């Protein structure tokens, strides 16, 4: 870099500049300045534009600018772009440093209460040059995010299909629902426990009520305990969360009332153990081998403990009906349990068991959702394949539209 000085035809001018700058800069930064002197002056970034970021809560402003003309690929002198913001015409503050080549930034640190103006600088190791300051701008808050219009459309189609079939089922339209083996087995499993005079164990996973799988599990619990109450079998349910304990007690109590056996219900059926994943598992394992339940339900959100529980349950010879929507744990349930509800079946179980037309109607609606998913998969594959092979405009456009729809 230092050699390049000598190559300049206008060496004299630069020398003069060199001397001038040398005089003005104090002795303290002399070393750094020597480096900077060898760098030619750079042009500032230009056309800085601050616009309100669309469709947000007024908490962001988007900034774009044309990079400095010296921001080149080779021998780039620019180290960073620095963004300065002044709110309500106060002293500007540095808000971001961006690598060379940048020309866009989204400032998320603003609010609708203030107005802001910006400037951007290009800087080398020793030198900084500022752009013009922008006009003052106050971010706006919008009510509706139109960027998500396609998501809204999709949600409406799927929900619409589900609700349509719920309503038509309510009007008395007959609906076919295929058999789900794991659910068909419930009656038999409960009956077996009654015959053997042994209890039934119900494990709702280890997540709290803010997981949709736990809620699904409790809706199934409501159906199963109804049967249990009718058979007058015993159920016990260790849980890992206090809220789940409370909710499960409500559910079981209601089922016993519905089966006209409110006196058989007791709070002791559901017990909180500990929030700790493996502490809970240690206790449940112990309970299994000591109480020897004839039937074990493992329905809900499970993690690594799935196989520990299922294998222990298997070792005591219990009939095990499991189900989870965590794909990583499904293989273990498949391997160690008698029946497994795979993903979607877990969520459909309560509706299936209820046998109520409206509930079954929602299952039919789900199927429409799957049909739509299959349709788009096949359409997308066709469009992508044709477009990649022959570059036909119709299919290119189709692919673009599909990508936008699913973005």
């Amino acid at each position, binding site marked *: 870099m230092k050699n390049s000085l000598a190559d300049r035809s206008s060496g004299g001018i630069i020398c003069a500049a060199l001397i001038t700058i040398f005089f003005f800069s104090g002795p303290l930064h002399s070393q750094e300045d020597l480096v900077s002197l060898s760098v030619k002056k750079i042009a500032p970034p230009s056309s800085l534009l601050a616009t309100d970021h669309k*469709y947000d*809560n*007024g908490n962001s402003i988007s900034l774009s600018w044309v990079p400095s003309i010296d921001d080149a690929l080779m021998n780039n002198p620019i180290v960073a772009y620095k963004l300065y913001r002044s709110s309500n015409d106060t002293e500007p503050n540095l808000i971001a440093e961006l690598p060379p080549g940048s020309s866009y930034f989204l400032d998320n640190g603003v609010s609708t209460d203030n107005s802001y103006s910006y400037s951007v600088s290009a800087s080398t190791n020793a030198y900084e040059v500022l752009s013009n300051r922008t006009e003052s701008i106050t971010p706006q808050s*919008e*009510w*509706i*995010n139109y960027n998500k219009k396609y998501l809204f459309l999709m*949600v409406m189609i*799927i929900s619409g299909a589900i*609700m349509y079939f*719920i309503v038509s089922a309510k009007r008395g339209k007959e609906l076919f629902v295929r058999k789900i083996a794991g659910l068909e087995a419930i009656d038999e499993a409960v009956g077996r426990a009654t015959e053997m005079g042994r209890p039934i164990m119900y494990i709702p996973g280890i997540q*709290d*009520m*803010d997981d*949709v799988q736990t*809620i699904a599990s*409790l*809706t199934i619990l*409501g159906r199963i305990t*109804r049967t249990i109450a009718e058979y007058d079998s015993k159920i016990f349910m260790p849980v890992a969360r*206090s*809220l789940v*304990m409370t*909710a499960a007690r*409500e*559910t079981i*109590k*209601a*089922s016993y*009332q*519905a089966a006209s056996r409110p006196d058989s219900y007791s709070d002791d059926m559901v*017990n*909180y153990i*500990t929030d*700790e994943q*493996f*502490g809970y*598992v*240690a206790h449940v394992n112990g309970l299994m081998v000591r109480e020897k339940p004839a039937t074990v339900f493992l329905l809900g959100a499970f993690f690594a403990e799935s*196989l*520990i529980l*299922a*294998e222990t349950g*298997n070792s005591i010879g219990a009939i095990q009906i499991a189900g989870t929507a965590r794909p990583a744990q*499904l293989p273990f349930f*498949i391997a*160690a349990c008698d029946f497994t509800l*795979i*993903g*979607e*079946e877990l*969520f*459909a179980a*309560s509706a299936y068991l209820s046998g*109520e037309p409206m*509930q079954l109607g*929602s299952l039919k609606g*789900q199927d429409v*959702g*799957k049909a739509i998913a299959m349709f788009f998969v096949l359409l997308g594959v066709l469009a992508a394949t044709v477009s990649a092979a022959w570059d036909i405009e119709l299919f290119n456009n189709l692919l673009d539209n599909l990508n936008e729809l699913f973005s």
Partner: protein
Amino acid sequence: MRRNIPLAVTFVVGMLLIVSVFLPPIETIGEDFGVFFSIIAVFAFFLGGGNLIKVHFGKIMKKSNDWEFSLVTVVGFFAMLIIGLFKIGAPGDISTSVTAEGSYFQEMFVYLINPLQSTMYALLAFFVASASYRAFRAKNREATILLVAAFIILLGRTPLGMMLTGWIPESFSIFQVPNLAVWIMNSPNLAGQRAIMIGISLGVVAMSLRLILGIERTYLGGDDKG
């Protein structure tokens, strides 16, 4: 009253969270719910922890079977509460974190909870073996497929896989077990995972709608007497 207010609450809150996705001013309401939930959960812990004490005290008082172990549990529980609340052993004043290096609370975690956790977790090594012994049998076509897929993957992860099939020429290298294992993971396995995930999401949508619309109400009780 007892039934309708909860149903109305579910409906309003559920709808609010759905539309919040499309409305910037209330976009962050989902995160706020998370904070709400964590506060409610602590209150609920009074019920859970209370139940824990009740059950074990009951056993100790009645001297029922295995009451000695209940004593251990209760002592452990209270010891942890005291150590934690008073931050015993934590360096500095009361404002230091309860998990600061050197606090008894942290020591208990490192020397009691941590080894217990990892050992319980390690039991999986044994159960994975006994489960595969029992489950991977060629009982029917489905079970055979399960068995073959698992066996190829297992083989592909040991030197045995390369030893057995290393002779296959490079142009057919896909049939070398380690490569075949990678292919299975990337193609049929991926497809199955996707089908499961798409199914799950539709199941969640339908169940959520049933809950929000009040069609599914078992968690509030099966009929109107409650």
